[in-house]
């Protein structure tokens, strides 16, 4: 099926834009990585985290200062 968002072009187009070269094996690895990463990445991007600003200088050895 055609991908209307050209998602299949993300890896080669992104590499070209950044000036990063890749051989066929590396492209295959990146294609597999995209298959694995992209659905949960899109799920993460879909979450509305308004009001949940990252803790400035979070001390990860302790609970958050504000709960």
């Amino acid at each position, binding site marked *: 099926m055609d991908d209307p968002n050209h998602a299949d072009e993300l*890896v080669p187009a992104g590499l070209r834009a950044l000036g990063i070269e890749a051989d066929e094996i590396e492209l295959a*690895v990146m294609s597999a990585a995209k298959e694995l*990463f992209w659905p949960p*990445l899109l799920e993460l*991007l879909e979450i509305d985290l308004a009001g949940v600003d*990252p*803790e400035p200088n*979070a001390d990860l050895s302790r609970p*958050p200062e504000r709960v």
Partner: protein
Amino acid sequence: MSALDLSLRGQAAAIAAGEADPAELLEEALGRIEARNPALNAVVASFPERSREMLAAAPPGPLHGVPVVFKDEWPLPWRAQRFGAAEMLAPSAPGESGPYRALRDAGAVIVGVGNMHELGAGSTGNVSVYGPARNPWDTERCPGGSSSGPAAAVAGGLVAGAVGSDGVGSIRFPAAYCGLTGLKPTFGRLPMAGHHMADTSTTIVSGPLCADAADARLLGSALAGESWEAGEPRRPRIGIVRGEVSEDVAPAVGAACEEAIEALRAETGGEVREIELADLGPATMATVLIANVEGLGNVTPAKLNALDPELSPIARGVLKFRSLLPAAAGVKSYAMRTLMRRRLAELFAEVDLIAWPTVPAVAPPLQAPLIELPSGTVTADSGNVRGAALANLTGIPAISVPGGLSEGLPIGRQLQAAWGRDELLLDAAEALERATDRRWVEARPSLAATEPAQA
């Protein structure tokens, strides 16, 4: 029985009591590495003269004269770290690191560098510039990663304790696959100085891999330069989470974890509560993103175009793929961290422990690290990360403890606690060992066939 087959604390006590000669123990450890390591590839560098010098200079301390293995993730004064890779994309030179100094000051003797998954980028340990480390329970199976060599060295009886690191489960995965106790401490509690990402990573910690919780307590104490006292978990409230992390697992793993929770409850007089912890999937992705982008400061397109051809194709592809990750997802990941930290802070007012399987299935084959789950066949990496990421994202401590055998391979069970409650995890792990008559911590692979380690 050789003193080398004593537990870590047993070796330390025997030396302190004059019942074991540390020089003989060191030679036994070096001999054991020579004899067993060809089958395991757990130790990628040994240096007998350096080890003898370390013993000669060893101060009195809690680990005086005790041999240990050290992951290839930190430098030693006589050896640069290689990170399991042909090229690190980060500076690497011999030197003193925080974990090295802690071990040296405790009197321990480093007898070898432990293999690791290339660049720390895998949960299986089947890819390394040194070749894969092998699981002592079945040398055709993955030992777990990325602390593959430290775990295989302990499970194979080369040493009784090893230092690993955990950025996204890298102590707990090999602990589970090799039938060990592995502690991912609270973020920042154990030394990281000398690690090439010590100043940039917000997920990686150092930690102990040992046969049981008492040994992990001793090695963790030595690394921390503190005394982690043993105690009794007082009627702990044990939280369980329904959903993918506890239910999309191999049936034997799920059953073992449920048995463990009930055994721990019965042993301690605690209670089990079902709790809600939403968004674990996005939280896992956030952890993976943070762990992947925090090391990018050293990376340039020019460096990526000149990668060492000896790097595996997977590493080359993944290193390049990281540069394509959208910045918006990175920013969102840090907000996700805040959200999950707030949720955990609220949850830890209701429960003391959160329990679920460390990994969803036992160690897969080295040649094809795939696992069968109720939802289908997935790569071990994608299944494993689900249960491990939360602790790295939020900074809380977590421990993997042995919990049975399936197909002759170990099952790992995980407990997590609030920030700074590392000792509670060790106490709970010891209670669990008592509840199961220590049969899972005393189980040994045939490759390391000796009597169970004696305390």
